């Protein structure tokens, strides 16, 4: 996993780095889960989601918004992301376990995925992206 939190006064800004898009999306997913929940989760349940979008940035925004939705309504803490990226579409298998307040409680509530500064860049041999979680 390669993500780090950067300073942002109001919200939570994550800097993500990966070799290729699927890795970048997966790490962004881990960053979101790490913000929302504490502790570790095991991959005991899985959910498959598909999102579409006209650009990689739109796909990332849609993927994270869907991950937030699935986690909240299914009360699942996800820890593994298997991604299949095609042009304009991502199929993602999300794996995790049910939320347990004793294990995962005390995280930060994420209200939404912000478009602020959401731009995927190719830097030398890696992809980088800043993602802002509105909290």
């Amino acid at each position, binding site marked *: 996993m390669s993500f780090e939190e950067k300073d942002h*006064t109001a919200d939570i800004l994550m800097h993500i780095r990966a070799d290729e898009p699927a890795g970048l999306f997966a790490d962004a997913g881990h960053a979101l889960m790490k913000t929302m929940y504490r502790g570790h989760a095991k991959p005991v349940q899985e959910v498959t989601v598909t999102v579409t979008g006209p650009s990689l940035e739109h796909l990332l925004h849609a993927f994270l918004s869907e991950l937030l*939705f699935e986690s909240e309504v299914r009360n699942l803490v996800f820890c593994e992301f298997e991604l299949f990226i095609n042009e304009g579409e991502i199929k993602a298998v999300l794996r995790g376990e049910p939320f347990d*307040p004793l294990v995962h409680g*005390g995280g930060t509530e994420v209200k*939404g995925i912000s478009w602020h500064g959401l731009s995927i860049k190719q830097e030398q041999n890696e992809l980088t992206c800043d993602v802002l979680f509105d909290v």
Partner: protein
Amino acid sequence: MLNGVIRKGEYEWELPVGFIPGMHVPARFFLSDELIKTLEEGALQQLANVATMPGIVKSSLAMPDIHWGYGFPIGGVAAFEYDSGVISPGGVGFDINCGVRLLTTPLKQSDLAKKKEILDNLYDAVPVGVGTRSSLRLSEKQLEKLMTSGATFAVDEGYGNQDDIIHCEEQGCMKEADPAHVSRKAKTRGVPQCGTLGAGNHFLEIQVIGEIYDEEAAKTYGVEKGQICIMVHCGSRGLGHQVCTDHLQVLENAVSKYNISLPDKQLACAPLTSPEGKAYFGGMAAAANYAWANRQIITHQIRNVLTRMCGIDYDDIRLVYDVAHNVAKIEEHAVDGKMTKVCVHRKGATRAFGPGCPDVPADYANAGQPVIIPGSMGSSSYLLKGTDIAMKRTFGSTCHGAGRVLSRSQAKKRIKGKNIRETLGKAGIIVKAPHDGSIAEEAPDAYKSSSEVVSVVHNLGISRLVARLEPLGVLKG
């Protein structure tokens, strides 16, 4: 950073038209010499950006709790002409109708010998934190009704009394709500969370009135020194967050459809009279109603705990008022000497209508609308009153809180939740939260001084101090 900024008075600063290209009106913000040290360049830029939006009238405004937000700065206020203006989720925020309410009790501090047990019981009664769910199970039909009628739905279902409705901004219901513009996803998120506090800066606090500044207004609002009060700060939960997410996508496309030129994608908007603008407004109003119902149901849970544990009557726990601080509303304000129908966006700002204004409850008509300003954890909160000056200068608006100065990550690095809990404990303030980390994030040092922010709005006259409330016990999500 202040190059090009004109100081207009002790607390008033202006970004003139031309500060950035495309501004239709000037931008104004209100800060003391002390608070201007905390002003972020990004927030200033956002304030100027708002002044470029179609149909904006008079000026783009920011209250003294200004800080960098999404689209609009937090603390931002802007009004757009109804016929030619726009509506933007960036001027409302993800947490639609995040707001605060103040309850009074007949209790004194000497009645709180079992304060810790009361707090424990409140913690059990009001679900707090990420992942918690309400014991309430709303049917689809009930949720539709809740989104249409807001606090009235909750009271009709037995979660309060008629006085509660009278003492909410908009009487706890925006009549423009249209649940048809609330997606299936938003409804799915909303069902299990109605009656929950959430996390982040949301809280439930036991407070005591520490000082009265305006005896007459305090009497009108039914507050007195030494009285135990409860303050609740929360919003529309996942339902409102999803409404924002869903409509942002639609409005992003509307920007090009209606040839709107914007300096920042986060200001995605649509004409108020367009199908996209009307759809967002209807969905946003439905989410606002959800928030009022949510705070009303939490109020019922609080009353149940206090009646059981303190031997007081349910109806003796009185709602002073409930204000929204993330919302867009259709109001009439004087523009160029003429009363004009406008859409006022308040993003981290509180309505502060003066005496005799419409929607100020009849029993408060002479004093003006109560304004409730929560402090950061462990610091003072304030009760103020709306003024005629606010009607003339800020579209009847004032600040909403303290405003952050430290990021959450900085706060967690510098401050340990356990230390804060112990320090506040020594001062007689009990803090209860699912985890010490969430205490550190919301530590008092992470915020501007609420006293300084409130003193600016008081001295400017856009709201006037009535009472100061001191925390005794805090429930944090």
